[in-house]
């Protein structure tokens, strides 16, 4: 019983971390159709932003929840204005440009911080479930994921900015005709996607540590989740995360972390074969 509760929390945690690392990409790739191969590096930058801010004496919560999203969001806006905006609709060129950006960011962070693992100690301590102990930080990550997903859903559905963003992505020329500045909308949307990615990187930093090439560990999983989820940003990310996260964690528990990853990838292949448009291509079709 205790073990079941513990496993349940760990499955939730796996789902939450998958959703967190994918949400920003769901906006940038799912919504804006920009294949951002530097997504993993945005996560990495979020981790560094939090750790550096914490080193400068900022409270760890402010460093993770405020500083990291702002820093990476700002980097996102700069990247969009200087690189991405020239390449909308040119998928191959965007891939090449963002791949270059990814290598550049890895090189830059290596030069500044060194190619060494740095980390934070997870705050919050631990708690007991029967005879098992678990890091309380696990629950915090799950909470952040829920809040982030709910926040994005609410912003897209209930706010004017969300409506404008969705409209501009669907038909930029029409949005412009109605008095919206598409350039600004694109920049802000990309920035929001980057900020969410930075948040995820910061929140996961105490768990996995940060080093310049850590993005490689995340980027494939993020793309798999977003593609597996399909067109709808929040519903798609959530459903794909639930599916892949649960499979990954249960397989890991039953065997080893290696087979956990294999199970995740195998599930992704089967899913894309059965549902080429992702989960939300078939189910929850009109959701966001």
């Amino acid at each position: 019983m205790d073990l079941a509760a513990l496993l349940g929390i760990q499955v939730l945690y796996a789902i939450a971390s998958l959703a967190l690392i994918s949400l920003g990409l769901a906006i940038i790739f799912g919504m804006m159709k920009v294949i951002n191969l530097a997504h993993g590096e945005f996560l990495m930058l979020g981790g560094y932003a939090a750790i550096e801010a914490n080193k400068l004496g900022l409270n760890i919560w402010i460093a993770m929840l405020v500083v990291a999203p702002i820093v990476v969001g700002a980097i996102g806006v700069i990247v969009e204005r200087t690189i991405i905006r020239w390449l909308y609709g040119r998928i191959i060129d965007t891939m090449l440009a963002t791949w270059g950006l990814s290598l550049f960011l890895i090189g830059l962070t290596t030069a500044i911080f060194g190619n060494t693992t740095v980390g934070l100690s997870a705050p919050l301590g631990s708690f007991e479930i029967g005879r098992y102990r678990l890091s309380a930080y696990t629950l915090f990550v799950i909470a952040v994921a829920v809040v982030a997903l709910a926040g994005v859903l609410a912003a897209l559905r209930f706010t004017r900015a969300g409506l404008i963003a969705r409209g501009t992505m669907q038909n930029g020329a029409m949005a412009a005709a109605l008095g919206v500045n598409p350039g600004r909308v694109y920049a802000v949307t990309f920035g929001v996607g980057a900020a969410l990615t930075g948040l995820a990187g910061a929140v996961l930093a105490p768990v996995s540590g940060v080093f310049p090439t850590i993005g490689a560990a995340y980027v494939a999983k993020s793309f798999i989740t977003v593609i597996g989820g399909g067109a709808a940003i929040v519903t798609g990310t959530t459903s794909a995360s639930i599916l892949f996260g649960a499979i990954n964690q249960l397989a890991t528990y039953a065997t080893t972390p290696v087979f956990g990853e294999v199970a995740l990838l195998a599930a992704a292949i089967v899913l894309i074969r059965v549902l080429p448009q992702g989960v939300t291509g078939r189910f929850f079709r009109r959701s966001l």
Partner: protein
Amino acid sequence: MSFNRRQFLTSAAAVSAASLLSFEGASAADPIAVASLLDLSGGLDIYGKPMIDAMTLAVEEANAAGGLLGRQIKLINYDTQSSMQLYTQFAQQAALKDKVAVAMGGITSASREVIRPVFDRFKTLYFYNTQYEGGVCDRDQFETGVTPAQTVEKLVPFAMKKWGKKVYVVAADYNYGQITSQWVKKYTLENGGSVSAIEFFPLDVTNFSSTIAKIQAAKPDFVWSALVGGAHISFYRQWAAAGMNKSIPMASTTFGVGNEQIVLSPSECNGMLVCYNYFESVKNAANTAFLAAFHKRFGADYPNVTELAMGSYQGFKLWAEAVKKAQSVDRMKVIEALETGISIDAPSGKVTIDPPTHHCILDVHIAEVKDKKFNLLEDFAQQKPSDTAAVCNLIKNPTDNQQYVIKI
């Protein structure tokens, strides 16, 4: 002036022969090339960086003392970037292009097994200066690091006496972790204990939550870690975050060699037990002099000289001693000089080459992690590499060339 083809060829040949000759003539005063192959970036840089610093100091000290055989030593430093492919490439470059007198390096046992055949094939003397799982038997190679019979054999009974008889082993998933965990199992069983499970992790795994749950379900008396590299530091963090470090203690054959005790906070790793050849707190005159020189060269705030850094330093010193004895850098002559059982007074104590195994006889110490430092608890003087000695005798079988693996 007539200048036909034959005359041209003759004079050209003479000129080139002369230039060749002059090149040959100058080479006696040329520096002796020594190659270092270490991971100075990537996931294994936590080990490689202190090693190259210690190696640099050893070379500089030798040069300041007038070099070897009247020649200066040139350290050719290859950063293998935690990539096996680069190990092969740089090993070939060191052997064929630089024609080095000796190559030193390799950190993981996987990388050693990648470059060992290369140096064998191209007849280049090779020093592996890292503590490892033991069993390599190769006349071309010298191993200056400690092996399980020198460390695990001491630490297992020590930890079992302190904590209890049931062990759970977590290890890196390559030859080092695979073989070392078998040694841990062997010594645990021999001391009347039991091993609940042995789990392996590839070097890039950072999520250990399900393992931590499994360990709690198994309720061992202590955990043995043979985890390796930067990513695996997450295990110690997640272990502490779950509060487990307060209920289940840990012993390790790898903790601290990458200065993990400094990267982590004291509350995350205090009380862990380790066993190595060298700790900064070892007391002897050579160590005092070494630490003074090291801090003068690399700054007073240099975090900690690791076991592996000392391995590099001592490896170079042993080779230099053999070159002096052989009065040559010729590979066979140096090997024969080393096989006389050469000995140095190193910062870790006396270090002697064991001729039949090409490993070292040296001091080891058990220590406890305490506030980012190691407190020495027990010393074992002049330990022999008995694990490798049981299977390997290069005096009797000089052509033996393999890594013996423990069978349980």
